[in-house]
């Protein structure tokens, strides 16, 4: 069994920043996670032992690089329990994954007067692409509402669906509120109306088990850097039947079969969607991240996050003047809060001076802030390296901040 000290010691940044009287309590994993040594080592190892361009080489190095790359595809497939590795498309992040689906899947289907449904708690990356697409095509963006707890009002979904609905786009977990959405139920209702569903899994993939077959979602998007992997990596999962019918997203090397000046033909899945040289080293690092997660076990990780959530929620609720924004029955390790009279930026600056990294602002979720009629929150989010002791220290500092600004 892993101890929390053992886990912390696998993160060079956490270790390094807490050395010699310095302190870093990193509570911003929803923005990006820190990286375990094995991910960093994998990048070094890739550039030291395997670096070559892939899919086109007839020498050992290129073969090795290609093999590692395609191997990661299989690892990711297993990690999210997809049926086929061809359904795994490597992209630069969740944002690109969602834009890819907007441009190549929904755009060609969307006629004037058609509709796209998003939830009221989406990150800008799962809202603005749909909004702009609707504006461009004279279609309608429908918003699935939430209640004051920050829970999706599932009973309203069916009312929003019709033959005109071309997609439902919803986050698995809200990065602003921590709510875990009933994605499986949403998919099942949408499918009754024949509507495909894209799930933004950016906040789920690194923290809880992901099973796209069980969810039965049509697309699943996530980012490597939020699951202990490198920046510049991400994955789009799509059901084969949809991916097959989609046009390529970008054009260039690696994704063509034949090219003449008059016309070209394109490769099969998944290469059709991977034009140009991909982030080969990043993908190697992503494989190491998946191994890290699987070694710890998603069940352990999910439980750890839940323990911290419960502990922190209790402690924070005890503090006078603190309001937690988002109290859904099912939450992940993310807590948004406001402190009476203290602006989130003052709170985060105060905490920063005490070695605590939290995020302040709207968390790329302005409509959520508008819903709660607040300009922003202070957000605390957990990773595998966080401890209850760190939460004790946090609450202590928050109390001091309230006194300081009183």
């Amino acid at each position, binding site marked *: 069994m892993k101890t929390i000290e053992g886990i912390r010691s696998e993160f060079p940044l956490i270790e390094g920043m807490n050395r010699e009287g310095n302190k870093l309590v990193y509570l911003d994993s929803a923005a990006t996670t820190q990286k375990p040594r094995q991910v960093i080592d994998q990048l070094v190892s890739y550039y030291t032992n395997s670096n070559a361009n892939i899919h086109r080489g007839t020498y050992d190095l290129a073969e090795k690089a290609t093999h590692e790359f395609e191997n990661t595809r299989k690892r990711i497939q297993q990690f999210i329990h997809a049926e086929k590795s061809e359904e795994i498309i490597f992209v630069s992040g969740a944002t690109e994954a969602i834009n890819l689906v907007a441009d190549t899947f929904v755009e060609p289907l969307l006629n004037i007067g058609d509709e796209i449904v998003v939830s009221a708690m989406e990150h800008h990356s799962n809202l603005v692409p749909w909004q702009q697409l609707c504006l461009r095509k004279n279609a309608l963006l429908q918003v699935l509402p939430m209640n004051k707890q920050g829970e999706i009002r599932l009973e309203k979904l069916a009312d929003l669906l019709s033959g005109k609905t071309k997609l439902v786009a919803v986050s698995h977990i809200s990065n602003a509120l921590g709510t875990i959405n009933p994605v499986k139920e949403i998919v099942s209702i949408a499918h009754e109306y024949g509507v495909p569903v894209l799930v933004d899994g950016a906040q789920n993939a690194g923290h809880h088990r992901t099973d796209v077959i069980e969810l039965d979602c049509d697309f699943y998007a996530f980012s490597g850097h939020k699951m202990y992997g490198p920046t510049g990596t991400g994955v789009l999962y799509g059901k084969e039947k949809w991916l097959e019918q989609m046009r390529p997203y970008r054009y260039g090397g690696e994704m063509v079969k034949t090219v003449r000046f008059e016309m070209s033909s394109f490769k099969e899945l998944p290469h059709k969607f991977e034009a140009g040289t991909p982030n080969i080293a990043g993908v190697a690092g992503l494989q190491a991240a998946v191994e890290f997660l699987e070694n710890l076990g998603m069940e352990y990780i999910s439980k750890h996050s839940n323990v911290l959530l419960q502990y922190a929620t209790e402690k924070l609720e005890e503090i006078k003047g603190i309001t937690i924004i988002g109290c859904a029955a099912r939450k992940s390790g993310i807590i948004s809060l406001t402190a009476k009279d203290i*602006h989130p930026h003052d709170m985060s*600056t105060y905490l920063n*001076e005490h070695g605590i990294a939290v995020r*302040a*602002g709207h968390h790329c979720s302005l409509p959520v802030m508008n819903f709660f009629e607040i*300009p922003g929150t202070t957000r605390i989010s957990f990773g595998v390296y966080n401890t209850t002791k760190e939460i004790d220290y946090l609450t202590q500092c928050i109390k001091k901040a309230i006194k*300081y600004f009183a």
Partner: protein
Amino acid sequence: MQHLDDLYHEIIRAHNKNPENYFKNEAAECKIEAYNPLCGDQFHLYFDIHDKRIANLSFHGYGCAVSKASTSIFTEKMNGLTLEEVLALYKNFHACAVEGKNTDINDFIPFQVASRFPGREKCAILTWESFKEYIERLK
């Protein structure tokens, strides 16, 4: 704490708690919004222009301690000035709060450190920038 007290100088904290000229004045001749989308800070400025001078300057809204105190001091300083004087004062404040230069105006001194705090460079200058843009458009 030394470091924190630099940013949250007692003058800033005092203005934050009890801002000057802090009231809505919907009847004002001129109204300006100062808005920072990054952090949601939003102040409304209200004023008239009498004899080419700023008059009855007040504000209302939401912001962090630094932006609120800066706006409070802004209303104190700008009231009664001509547009030329406003611009001169803006330059003085900008040099101090953004470029970190020394200033001869005591009330500005606490803002000199603001620009050195992560992500806080815009807090002190927010209202001042919006006001300056507004009067430049007037000309």
